[in-house]
């Protein structure tokens, strides 16, 4: 399949701070997730491929053409920015139709497209309210609507699930998944692995401005599975539970936390470890109050993968 987005040795730095370093990529139609911890360079990458900032080195092509200052290309691109910024005094309807005006549509077509986009994001009933009265979820959906209102071939979404409640997340994920049809290319960034996982299997891992890994999500999952995890368990008798855990091969380390009745267990097999807890708890009559995984986040995984 022919790549829609191509970057060659793309590098960007802000003064002395490295934003992105030597990124060469080819992105084909479908949903591609850009995954990386905060400050990894995801937004810089998305801003570069949408021509909002200039690369210091390298080039970026969209449909074979250079993007920077090539405004006709934006007929094919929809961009949903990360920042929660709007023309707050406008209504949702005015916001969408106002931006569609910049695509040179006739008034009738403009209204038609705005109506369709607002229907997709389920904001038709609230279209005449001013944006400043919208909830965070509605604002995120409105941002998504402005990105798809002109029916673009390429949709670039920068952290579209940020600050949303679980219901709002589900709605946006459903929207993004439903939008990938008809050969469209969707790029979506996030720092939360399960969010990306819920949308696509194709991911690009980005860390400290560099592409760390790229490919199928199972590959990343495998990397993560081998990552030793620390699990915190708050229970009625942590010492008794600890004595049972240390007999297991997949338990690497057991520590007592400074928090009351809390045990910290390091394991290299989460699945086996979690399946063991209920049986031990019943057998020893231990009441488990809480199980958390303090390092179950992307930064911890990256730290492990880069050998920190």
């Amino acid at each position, binding site marked *: 399949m022919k790549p829609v987005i191509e970057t060659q040795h793309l590098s960007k730095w802000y003064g002395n701070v490295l934003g992105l370093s030597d990124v060469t990529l080819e992105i084909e139609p479908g949903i591609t997730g850009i995954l990386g911890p905060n400050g990894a360079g995801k937004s810089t990458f998305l801003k570069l491929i949408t021509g*909002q900032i200039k690369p210091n080195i390298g080039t970026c092509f969209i449909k074979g053409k250079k993007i920077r200052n090539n*405004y006709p290309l934006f007929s094919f691109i929809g961009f949903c*920015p990360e920042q929660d910024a709007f023309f707050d005094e406008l209504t949702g309807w005015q916001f969408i139709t106002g931006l569609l005006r910049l695509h040179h549509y006739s008034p009738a077509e403009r209204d038609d497209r705005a109506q369709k986009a607002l229907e997709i994001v389920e904001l038709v009933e609230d279209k005449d309210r001013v944006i400043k009265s919208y909830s965070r979820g509605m604002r995120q959906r409105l941002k998504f609507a402005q990105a798809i209102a002109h029916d673009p071939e390429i949709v670039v979404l920068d952290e579209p699930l940020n600050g949303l409640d679980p219901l709002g997340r589900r709605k946006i994920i459903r929207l993004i998944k439903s939008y990938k049809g008809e050969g469209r290319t969707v790029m979506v960034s996030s720092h939360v692995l399960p969010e990306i996982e819920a949308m696509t299997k194709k991911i690009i891992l980005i860390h400290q401005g560099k592409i760390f890994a790229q490919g199928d999500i199972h590959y990343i999952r495998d990397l993560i599975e081998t990552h030793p995890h620390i699990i915190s368990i708050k229970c009625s008798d942590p010492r008794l539970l600890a004595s049972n855990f240390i007999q297991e091969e997949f338990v690497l380390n057991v520590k007592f936390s400074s928090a009351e009745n809390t045990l910290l267990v390091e394991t290299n097999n989460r699945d086996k470890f979690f399946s063991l807890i209920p049986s031990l708890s019943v057998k020893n009559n231990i009441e488990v109050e809480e199980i958390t995984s303090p390092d179950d986040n992307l930064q911890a995984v990256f730290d492990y993968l880069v050998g920190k």
Partner: protein
Amino acid sequence: MKLFFLISILPVVVALIIKINQFFSDRTAIQGIYIFNNMTVVMYLQFLILILALFYGTSVCSEEMEGKTLTYLTTRPIAKSAILLGKYAAYTSLIIILTAIGVTLSFFILNLNDLLNFSLYKILLRDVVVLSLGLICYTSFFTFIGTIMKKSIIFGLVFSFGWENVIQYFPGSTQRFAIAHYLKSLLPAPKTGRFSFLMFRLEPSPPLLAVFMIFLITVVFLGLACVLFSWKEYIFED
């Protein structure tokens, strides 16, 4: 917006106070048109149009930066220069309308006793045209400043109330480096009076040259603003 509307009607309030004061005082009334002419120069030409052009001109770019809404506009199939020119045209039209309303109301209030003297309306028209030219030119300059600088307001205030108000009193041709010089060249020489020093000019440029220069300055700064806005990288501050 509301603040600038209030500022733009400030001369109307002053005109009302003068008229009410004239009505109740026994002093010989000064001709309304004389006060109006002075008001055009002192309140509008040297203060109000500068303030309006400064705040609206610099905000053409800075408001999108501060509001972080620039992304919505620059990811559309439209040239960045068109975005800038569109906003410039909209803001300039708005402040011309605001100023024209204020000037016209002030004119009617100050010349309440002489409204049938149709020759006075030529003065009103001339003043509105000169002030509009001033707004077009200053807004273009401040639009350019807004695209190039972050602290454009501070520079603008120094330019407006430093450079523009001081340089015109310099002898020789130095005064031609002020936009105000060309605007004042389109107004008649002041009669001697309390405010005549504010109209002081050594060598007024011919009207045609003045109009040409005003348009030239406008085109040059708008052109520079367009080029800069198209090529400059705008990075939002977190």
